[in-house]
């Protein structure tokens, strides 16, 4: 039951998103596809952070989804849309198993534990050439099948078409994440984050809820992985390494994690900076340096992330509107 203003805003947003690919070059369209997939990656990550736990294994969970979906299509001939869903479920299952050791820990120890767990999974991919393809990974992953309406055939090799496919899957996923957060489940996640002892004392099984957050987050990371694998056509252990995880962290921190749109802002703004500014200026090689600088600057000057800019500006404008003398005084 959304307010009219919210609906209108969403409508405008989706209209803009529908027009967007036609304003982009072919290579920019390809970047837009990856951007949409990364939105799901970072937003699913945010759900886990609601319970107060930050993991370093989220990108590996994306990889679990990508590998599982690729292998199901390659080895068992499972049709691609079904395999993507199964990839999400595989990531969720791995998260459920990992919860048993990981959620004996909290905070820093969980962070390190999740990193170790992720590295073990990546080691398995590298070590077992059958079926994971070793360090080279999997190649020639089946593409998303064409859809033939008779009068219209949609070919998902075309980035524009895959962009719309990803947009639909990601929007639906974000809606589900939003519903979860707005329900009592989300309230319980917040409660565990702020005071886990008090939550436990009124009957919240903290272990179960931490596991639930981890499983849901991993499911959607796995879906993002499936979308990625069947688009790019190849996956390998390096693609899901810790440096990729650092990007997710930077998107989340720079955007802010208090709202669902915070990490979206983070990933969009940083991708635009990355692709247009850095690549345009030929600064590709110093990318980690610039990301690091942006992270430090945002932690220093925008600790609540980009999401806090809007409310801040609005508050300032309101103050200025009410009391022009004060605004003038400040400027002087």
């Amino acid at each position, binding site marked *: 039951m959304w307010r009219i203003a919210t609906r209108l805003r969403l409508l405008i947003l989706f209209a803009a998103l529908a027009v967007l690919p036609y304003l982009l070059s072919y290579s920019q369209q390809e970047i837009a596809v990856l951007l949409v997939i990364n939105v799901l990656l970072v937003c699913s990550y945010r759900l886990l952070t609601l319970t107060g736990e930050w993991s370093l294994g989220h990108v590996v969970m994306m990889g679990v989804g990508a590998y599982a979906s690729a292998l199901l299509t390659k080895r068992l001939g499972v049709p691609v849309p079904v395999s993507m869903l199964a990839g999400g479920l595989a990531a969720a299952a791995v998260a459920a198993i990992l919860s048993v050791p990981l959620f004996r820990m909290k905070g820093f120890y969980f962070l390190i534990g999740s990193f170790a767990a992720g590295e073990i999974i990546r080691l398995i991919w590298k070590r077992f050439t059958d079926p994971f393809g070793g360090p080279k990974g999997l190649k020639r992953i089946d593409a998303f099948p064409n859809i033939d309406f008779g009068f219209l055939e949609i070919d998902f090799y075309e980035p524009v078409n895959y962009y719309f496919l990803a947009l639909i899957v990601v929007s639906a996923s974000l809606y589900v994440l939003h519903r979860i957060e707005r*329900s*009592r489940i989300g309230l319980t996640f*917040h409660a565990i984050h*702020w005071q886990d*002892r008090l939550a*436990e004392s*009124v*009957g919240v099984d903290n272990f179960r809820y931490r596991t639930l957050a981890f499983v849901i987050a991993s499911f959607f990371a796995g879906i993002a992985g499936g979308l990625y694998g069947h688009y790019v056509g190849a996956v390998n252990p390096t693609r899901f390494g810790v440096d990729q995880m650092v990007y997710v962290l930077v998107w989340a921190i720079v955007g802010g994690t208090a709202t669902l749109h915070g990490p979206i802002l983070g990933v969009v703004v940083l991708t635009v900076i990355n692709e247009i500014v850095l690549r345009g200026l030929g600064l590709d090689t110093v990318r980690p340096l610039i990301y690091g600088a942006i992270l430090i600057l945002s932690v220093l000057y925008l600790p609540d992330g980009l999401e806090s800019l809007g409310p801040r500006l609005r508050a300032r404008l309101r103050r200025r509107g009410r009391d022009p003398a004060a605004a003038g005084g400040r400027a002087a």
Partner: protein
Amino acid sequence: MSGPGERPILEARGLIRRFGGLVAVDNFSFAVREGAIHGLIGPNGAGKTTTFNVISGFYAPNAGQVLYRGRNVSGRKTSALAAMGLVRTFQGSTLFQELSVLDNVRVGRHLTARAGFLARLLGADRPSERAADAKARETLAFFGLEELAGEPASNLSHGHQRMLGMAVALSAEPRVLLLDEPFTGMNPQETRRMMSLVRRIRDGGVTVMLVEHDMQAVMNLCDTITVMNFGALLVEGAPEEVQNDPAVIEAYLGAAADDGAGHAA
């Protein structure tokens, strides 16, 4: 007013809890009768909070048993004990500070507002959530906090925070409520109001065990008082008996002389 029954609803038998070399709870036993308001007092550091932590499952006992409604529940998870009706509050203001007052109490209704994952996702939990909201507001009204429902808990005065802490615990619908220093930091007027609320909670069928340093309140409120010192049982009895017991006076005076604070007197 309904007096306590004969049957113990909560019992400790030979509880021991060590922290390294320190024996915080030392072979401690007591029995709380159903329907009672049972006081647990003792000088600072006597082991009262540790006892609560063991009973409520935050710590496992090193030895001994906790019996709840005749069953040995030692070492069970806190959340499982809460589901059985054994709920505690915390010393100091332990709240979901960033959540609203209403949301604090809504979290307290975790056990009673049950629904499956899909029901929550699809919004089919709305009837049970509406009921939970109504109950939460009732609880707030009981504590006189209904006006503050929309405020963040962190904005509340100390006295109101203590009340909200009790409101959260009460909304879990306990059979036994363990209160750790419910009156600390309250002014005399607030304390009197809280005392009458504690009586009403008991009259509503909840057995209350409370730790408190405000002796006047404890003597007024409790049917039975257990005094502990250095982790062990010192004396147990009715308020008049305990009040005049030389061992109790000695323990408190000793403690007061030790740290010069004497705020327990």
